[in-house]
């Protein structure tokens, strides 16, 4: 495991080709006139544009979430033919959340950092996007989990057999709190929804995956709900990581 040292001498970026910059096509201004209406009362603005994004999220009840999650599962179950079909649909439902959570969490990190926006420091603290695999995994395991569930995930491991596979372990996924799986579908793990969120984060950060999936950990007595999120990164991501490692002085 490379240690999280900060001295990374990144290779210089390729020089910009200014000679040809006027060939970049400029789109003509769009004729579209937005027609959305917003509340008008000045003293009492309530739109999302008036609210601070870095405001800490408030709390709501776990049962309310459970009712909604149940509704989501029921909806997709009714439209699915198989267990893997349900999991795919739940994964797709979570995916766009992940894409947005990456930006939101990085924005909040930057806003909360001592130096404020653009403050110097390690990536992560400054709100920079994770660019190395380990940073990304720590972001998912720590920042994402804390942002969603108020605690970090329970373990982060690399597969012993395949180097592009990583596992994030949650002993007791919050989303499964009130979920019971019927015997004939025992393979189904509804945390596939969270796997979708993770996949969205990885993709949005530029770490393409062949999929993120949620699996029950076998033979666990202490944590019956223990779930393993399997992240399978694409070959090109691993190659890029190798390249960065070689060129970046061990990172």
């Amino acid at each position, binding site marked *: 495991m490379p240690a999280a040292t900060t001295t990374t001498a990144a290779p210089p970026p390729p020089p910009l080709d200014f000679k040809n910059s006027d060939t970049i096509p400029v789109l003509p201004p769009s004729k579209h006139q937005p027609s959305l209406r917003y509340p*008008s009362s000045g003293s009492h603005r309530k739109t999302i544009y008036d609210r601070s994004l870095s405001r800490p999220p408030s709390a709501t*009840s776990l049962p309310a*979430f459970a009712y909604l999650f149940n509704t989501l599962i029921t*909806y997709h179950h009714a439209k699915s033919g198989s267990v893997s079909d349900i999991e795919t649909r739940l994964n797709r439902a979570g995916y766009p959340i992940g894409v947005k959570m990456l930006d939101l969490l990085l924005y909040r990190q930057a806003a909360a950092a001592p130096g404020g926006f653009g403050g110097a420091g390690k990536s992560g603290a400054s709100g920079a996007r994770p660019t190395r695999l380990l940073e990304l995994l720590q972001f998912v395991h720590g920042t994402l989990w804390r942002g969603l569930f108020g605690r970090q995930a329970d373990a982060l491991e690399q597969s012993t057999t395949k180097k592009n596979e990583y596992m994030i372990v949650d002993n007791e996924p919050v989303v499964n709190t009130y979920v019971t799986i019927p015997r004939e579908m025992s393979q189904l793990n509804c945390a596939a929804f969270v796997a979708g969120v993770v996949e969205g984060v990885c993709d949005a950060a530029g770490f393409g995956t062949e999929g993120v999936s949620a699996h029950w950990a076998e033979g666990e007595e202490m944590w019956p709900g223990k779930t393993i999120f399997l992240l399978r990164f694409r070959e090109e991501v691993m190659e890029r990581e190798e390249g960065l490692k070689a060129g970046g002085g061990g990172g």
Partner: protein
Amino acid sequence: MASSSKAARLGEEVWKSRVDKINAEVLTLTYGTIVAQLCRDLTLPATANKTDYAAVNAELDRMGYNIGLRLIEDFLAKSNTGTCSSFRETAEVISKVGFKMFLNVVPQVTNWQGVEGKPQAFGLVFEENPLAEFVEYPDDGRAQDELWYSNILCGVIRGALEMVQMQIEAHFVTDVLRGNDTTEMRVTLVRYIEDEMPPDDE
């Protein structure tokens, strides 16, 4: 009003001591995926991607109804409230205990119509709406006139009250997402459902 502050105290107490909590954003985002999915799935006949917003409203209401049928039991067990003596009290309990307990918000009860024994209706004005955080309607010229984003809440109230012998009708009349200055739901009491004997009961 005495019953109002009593309800408020009860709501606070239940929320503080008897409810497991979760980050409200997880709820917001999960609800968002449900609505977005419905908007993709329910399209107008013979179109590929024109959402049938009326169908989305109806489906959200139906989903809420199914939640309400089950939620009432949880509500009664945790809050320990007895039978309400009037529809006014019902309104207070919904706002200050029900919404507080499940969503950690307290919509304001306003705009009363009718008196005891006559058709009665009240409004619930949402100062905060955890379901609608982060929400931006598509600029398709229709969503703002047709979609009631939080319609699931109408169904929840309808389903829950039906289980305690009240038939009601609920719908949103304004929503800040539509450009209105407030978000308000109207709840109208249709009738109290009498205990009906099963047909073949001797």
